[in-house]
């Protein structure tokens, strides 16, 4: 009986070795397989593929005040976006002008966007009733000077198509 037990133990010893080696070989098959037949590479060669790199349509790059071909935006200075923003990243500065009918009107002077505090929650875009805002595809935000991250979104000389001057 003792002999039988010993034989069994020796058998277990070698079985253990066999199982272990088999499991290692199975793992090596995976890596070796990829060595022979290259797997799908998800790495993007970024600066080289700049020309072909296209972000998804919904990609949240940086905030943009939409201007049409006549350099007109549709911000009516309602300030909803600034109120919706959790971080205070948006400042809408307006000026009062005398309208054609003699009443004073608020028109956009500067639409200031603080990229440095923006957390891209996306609350401002659907908040705008005039659909004046969107996120563009720009993702290269790196600058050497923090003050460059404070941006004026309305282009120089642009006018508003919603509020007539």
């Amino acid at each position, binding site marked *: 009986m003792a002999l039988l037990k010993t034989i069994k133990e020796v058998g277990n010893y070698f079985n253990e070795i066999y199982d272990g080696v088999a499991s*290692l070989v199975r*793992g*090596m098959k995976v*890596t*070796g397989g*990829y*060595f022979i037949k*290259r797997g*799908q*590479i998800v790495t993007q060669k970024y600066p080289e593929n700049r020309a072909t790199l296209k972000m998804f349509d919904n990609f949240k790059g940086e905030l943009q005040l939409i201007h049409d071909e006549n350099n007109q935006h549709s911000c009516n200075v309602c300030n909803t976006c600034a109120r919706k923003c959790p971080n205070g990243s948006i400042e809408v500065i307006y000026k009062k002008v005398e309208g054609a009918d003699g009443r004073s009107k608020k028109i956009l002077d500067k639409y200031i966007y603080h990229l440095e505090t923006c957390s891209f929650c996306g609350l401002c875009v659907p908040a705008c009733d005039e659909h004046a805002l969107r996120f563009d595809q720009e993702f290269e935000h790196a600058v050497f000077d923090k003050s460059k991250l404070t941006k004026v979104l309305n282009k120089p000389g642009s006018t508003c198509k919603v509020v007539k001057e």
Partner: protein
Amino acid sequence: MYDFTPMIDSITGYLNGVFTPFWAGLISMVMLGVVLLTVYAVLGLYLVFAERKICARMQNRLGPNRVGPFGLFQTIADLIKLLLKELIFIKNADNFLFNIAPFIVIIASIMAIGSIPFAKGLQAIDLNIGVLYILAISSMGVIGILIAGWASNSKYSVIGAMRSGAQVISYELSVGLALLCIIVYAGSMQFSEIIASQEDGWWIFKGHIPAFIAFVIYLIAGTAETNRGPFDLAEAESELTAGFHTEYSGIKFAFFFLAEYMNMFVIAAIATTLFLGGWLPFHLFQWAGFNHVMDYIPPVFWFFAKTAFVIYLMMWFKWTFPRLRIDQLLALEWKYLLPINLINLILISFLTLMQWHF
């Protein structure tokens, strides 16, 4: 066919003719040193590159691809960066030992290269106890690691160094016994004679299954001796940040890094010499035509091809397996490798006595 002995002889002859024997010896030593160091540096750098490319391919990545075509000069750029980096001095560290440790590690690996036969006659020194010399020299590296860990005055380093000590001392046994198997077969400890004994067939084929088992054990134990994954407990990145070289920076770190790769090369080169016929070309039975074609390929190529194969195997292990724990590491050596190795040695002795090998 490709015998380098006449070339070496003519150089030494010329030197002896021009200079006095003392100066001739000195100049040949310097020449040898320069050649070996160049080979060492180039091999080390390109082994790092090869490892990065191979593991990248296994991991579905691109690997280095920025500096030079296919990133070929990446490691050279890395070396320049490491040369220019600040050497950090640690408070309360044993500065003398701290500075000397990387040199001990790297000198051990350079000395080991000296006795490796790259081709017939292309060997710095052909000691009659070559195998013993290699074993002695390669175990010297661990002293450097122990010193590095101790002198760093860091707990991570000490743990890493102590692990490394336990590991290398244990696995030295298996390396020695696995090599002993081939010494028993070949009947010599001299590398040139061991290679000569494989003219009619490499020991891994000639020596039946025991030789193959010895090869596998040597590979496992050799990987462990170089502190490479899955036996990289001395570094154990996720546990000890970087183990024994946690506190090293700049070129001193580069020495450890280079030494690791060159130790790997030495281990692979010895495996090639003892098991895979060294620089001998691949011969198949008695096919004279095939064998003749193989003879035309230079022995240096054969040597490096075989070594590269063994190195590839070691990299394959590293990039597939998780790391062992220290107690499992020692259990693997003392419960599995050593007993198997001893039985294997007895078997081989028996085979040799009965002249049953081919």
